[in-house]
């Protein structure tokens, strides 16, 4: 029984829990709201573990499937299931939420219950996105996701939050509209079904495929984000509170890449091959162009935001070179980027909580005052630069191996991240952490406290584990990736 509805539990436990947290009322009950949120976040994380322990790595079929009728008039079902790719993203979601709750413990002082609830509800919705097998159900989760994020940035955000929230909301909403149109078209082609797996089997002509591909591209490219529809991300990050940035970078961006994996590649194999040049081109622009842009940022959050875009370029590059190394590297990169960018945003949060500045120039010499914190941040900076032994290396390495097979120049351009990635990350690190103490405020900094050390340690363990022994992660996804590549390799054009 429990295993049969494990996914539902993973989705609804945090959502119902979030509503319960809301019920604790105003800030007089903040301590209760905090404790309750942590409890629910941990319970939700534990609720996703049976998915991992019970997962069969030998089949590409969807597992933990739940299939119930929802809106019979339009054949819309409540249909859930995970494969080796979405399972990892579900686990990443529940893990990250725990960290966000811990990180907000003392930092958020106003409307605590609402803040915590927004994250818990968002967790449920994101797990919904990653496990929905009905296109409309997917769409509902996908769009519903925006609301808590909109609120988080809009209420707890920085001074320019209104511009940032509207930009974020409109960008992503506009992108998604065409996706809905594509779903409806596919609904008729699939014999009046919104079953995503049925979409995979639909035969489509080239023109149809290209049009649907472009419609999907609008939705997914904005989320990833790919150049040139990326400009909402730096603004959203800069204005978002720390927890918002973590979820945005660690999880929301993955939804776009997941969309390509679940929809574009298997449903539109011919268009994917036909337009691969475009996807690869945009990915390489993201890696090189955005890498250079990141180099000159003066705001730490903006810098990490741009670095996120560059790293996501590896994901889209890996997906569209159609080989095992590329796709597996892309999935690994998604998970790893969740850890590393989340960790870096939390690091900036730790500094911001103390000095209330994100500007690089306001720091310098932090290592003198915060040696423990500096060590953690060094690890995450190195992971961001893709150092072997950290998770950041695995995805980049596999994607470069894959890209070289597709075309030497893809690998050369992608490989520039070795230099640029190290340059922007370590140059920022140098200016913030090293050097003599130049500002009075820096001289008063106190090192990371127990709570901060806790979440940094959790992330450090994840980054190192995945870097030193990625095989357990790879094992989970092998068969699913193989299946995806098989679907992508078979033409859907009628003979």
């Amino acid at each position: 029984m429990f295993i049969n509805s494990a996914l539902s539990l993973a989705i609804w436990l945090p959502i119902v829990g979030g509503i319960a947290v809301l019920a604790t009322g105003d800030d007089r009950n903040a301590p209760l709201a905090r404790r309750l949120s942590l409890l629910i976040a941990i319970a939700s994380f534990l609720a996703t573990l049976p998915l991992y322990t019970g997962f069969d790595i030998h089949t590409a079929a969807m597992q933990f499937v739940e299939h119930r009728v929802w809106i019979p008039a339009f054949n819309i079902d409540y249909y859930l299931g995970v494969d080796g790719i979405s399972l990892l993203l579900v686990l990443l979601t529940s893990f990250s939420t725990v960290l966000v709750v811990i990180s907000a413990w003392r930092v958020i002082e106003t409307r605590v219950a609402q803040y915590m609830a927004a994250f818990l509800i968002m967790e449920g919705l994101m797990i919904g996105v990653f496990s929905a097998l009905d296109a409309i159900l997917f769409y509902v989760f996908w769009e519903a996701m925006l609301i808590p994020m909109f609120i988080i940035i809009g209420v707890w955000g920085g001074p320019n939050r209104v511009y940032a929230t509207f930009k974020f909301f409109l960008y992503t909403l506009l992108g998604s509209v065409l996706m809905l149109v594509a779903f409806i078209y596919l609904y008729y082609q699939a014999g009046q079904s919104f079953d995503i797996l049925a979409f995979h089997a639909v035969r489509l002509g080239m023109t149809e495929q290209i049009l649907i591909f472009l419609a999907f591209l609008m939705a997914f490219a904005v989320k990833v984000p790919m150049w040139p529809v990326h400009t909402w991300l730096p603004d959203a990050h800069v204005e978002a509170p720390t927890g918002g940035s973590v979820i945005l970078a660690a999880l929301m961006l993955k939804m776009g890449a997941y969309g390509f994996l679940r929809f574009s590649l298997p449903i539109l194999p011919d268009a994917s091959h036909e337009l691969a040049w475009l996807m690869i081109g945009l990915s390489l622009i993201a890696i090189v162009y955005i890498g250079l842009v990141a180099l000159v940022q003066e705001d730490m959050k903006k810098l990490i935001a741009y670095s996120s875009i560059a790293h996501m370029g590896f994901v889209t590059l890996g997906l569209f070179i159609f080989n095992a190394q590329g796709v597996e590297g892309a999935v690994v990169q998604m998970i790893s980027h969740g850890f590393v960018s989340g960790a870096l945003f939390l690091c900036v949060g730790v500094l911001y909580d103390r000095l209330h500045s994100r500007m690089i120039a306001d720091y310098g010499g932090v290592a003198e005052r915060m040696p423990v914190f500096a060590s953690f941040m060094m690890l995450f900076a190195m992971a961001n630069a893709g150092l072997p032994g950290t998770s950041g290396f695995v995805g980049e390495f596999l994607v470069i191996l894959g890209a070289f097979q597709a075309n030497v120049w893809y690998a050369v351009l992608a490989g520039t991240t070795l230099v640029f990635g190290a340059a922007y990350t370590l140059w920022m690190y140098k200016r913030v952490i090293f050097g003599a103490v130049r500002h009075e405020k820096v001289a008063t900094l106190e090192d990371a406290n127990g709570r901060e050390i806790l979440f940094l340690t959790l992330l450090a363990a994840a980054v190192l584990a995945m870097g030193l022994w990625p095989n357990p992660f790879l094992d989970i996804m092998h068969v699913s990736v193989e299946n995806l590549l098989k679907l992508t390799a078979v033409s859907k054009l009628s003979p």
Partner: protein
Amino acid sequence: MQNVYLAIPLACLAGALVSGLLGKVIGRAGAAAAAILGVAVACALSFVVFHDVMVAGHHFNGPVYTWGVSGGVPMEIGFLIDPLTAIMLVVVTFVSLMVHIYTIGYMHDDSGYQRFFSYIALFTFAMLILVMSNNFLQLFFGWEAVGLVSYLLIGFWYTRDSATFAQLKAFLVNRVGDLGFLLGIAAVFMYFNTLDYRAVFAIAPQFATATMQIVPGVDWQVMTVICLLLFVGAMGKSAQVPLHVWLPDSMEGPTPISALIHAATMVTAGVFMVARMSPLYELSETALSVVLVIGATTAITMALVGVVQNDIKRIVAYSTLSQLGYMMVALGVSAYSVGIFHLMTHAFFKALLFLAAGSVIIAMHHEQDIRKMGGLKKYMPVTFVTAWAGSLALAGIPPFAGFFSKDMIIEAVHYSQLPGSGFAYAAVLAGVFITAFYSFRMLFLVFHGKPRMDDHTKHHLRESPWVVTGPLVLLAIPSFLIGLLTIEPLLFGGYFADALKVLPAHDVVGRISRGYQGLGPFIAHGLQSPPFMLAAAGVLLAWLLYIRYPQLPDRIRARTQPLYDLLLNKYYADEFNDFVFARGARGLGRWFWRIGDVKLIDGMAVNGTARVVGWVAAAVRQVQSGYVYHYAFAMILGVFLLITFFLHR
């Protein structure tokens, strides 16, 4: 034996973790003891392995664990223990142990004592992972890990801007090399579908004539592409021109790490790698030629820069660059065993020279300018004698270690028929003269002549404590003897056997060995050959200029000012890189950001769309005036238009 192999790197890692993570708990002495114990265990076990390989002839090649599998291809962490690995193990752990002991004295007053021990033990671990690897993945792990620790150590005094600048520069320049290296690994993976050395080496000959197209229409030999890409990595790590720029700046770190990382071990990684890849390099004469020419260029140009330096550590640093060039030259002419031989002798005498320089720096209260030294021999007898031993070895004076290895390199180049070997021969011969000159210039200026330091410093001059001089003596012994003792077994006794592969056509060492009649004749022949004469001339010139006629150098400098400036500014390579690459990248980034992102995408597309929506809305809003007669008029107009349309269609 497998447990012993595993214990060698893990002992160092344990030492690093204990001294790093528990440094506060166990205190300074505890941290030092933990790190030294770890490395000492590794060193002892390395000798056990060396003995096992050499005497019993045991080899090992096997996995430790599967790192990952992708597309059905396993990528493993594993060890390859053969004569090449064994000799590297001994050199790395021995020099590292000496440096660890020396550190007790050198870093005595530093507040980062525990951190320093943790880093150097971690470094030893990284280097061991690199040399013990049996596959390209782990090689890259070690490769990058030594880069990381080097970064941490160069910036050890992180409050100094010069140090944090140097560390960033070192890391980024190395990363440029690593990019080539990684692409080389990707090429190996693509063509051989495995990253395991043994499998790759076994299939490689089948690809001897295979070609690929990087630029459409131009056929490239696959092996040449692979070897050149891998060599780009070696150029970064082993600081070959033009990726040499990071090494002199790395002297910002504490002296012990200069000895360990920037002389004896990390910078030899590139040399080791090329030797390890000999089965691949043998298949591409183009690649070998490139290695040869780059090596020879580095050897001569960097030696020239060493002549004009005045910072004691920088002189030694430039001599390292030049000697690394020599090693590359040896590899280029397929004399891999000679390259490794020079790597080994150089590791001992260069570590010795750096540590001796450090000893001088302690005595001089961290003054590093040799123009402010002089006459130190009577204050620091042990440092003085050992520095002489190191310099004689570096200059290649028989029977010191450097003589054998350098003479063999020059002989090997002499026998080579490879394109570029003529240039290389001239370069390495000239290099001998320059090397002897600058190393004795340093020696004379520091230890001989009149003291030129201020009275306060002079008053406090004294020999360093035993933890400093002990390692000097222990390194001076191999600097003196190691060449004499090992040249026969290593080069002519077939020690390396299958570990290094040389095609018969390239076998210059074999040709030399046919004429080899024992140590005595070898030395006797060496004494009559041009290299020795040049070295002696270099020493003599240094003596003339800096002892006999000390006023001469200034006059010569005045006559040759442009050349002097060129050398003093290191051929303006730093200025060039700074202007073109550092500024160029930032300028391009700023342009992309301000013009691309802010102006075009956000300014025109995004906010522009919003503005257009605003204008349209404002225009349309005028129509909703709220007056009934406006709406009535619109309705009548509409009805009229509809009627007209239906009547006339």
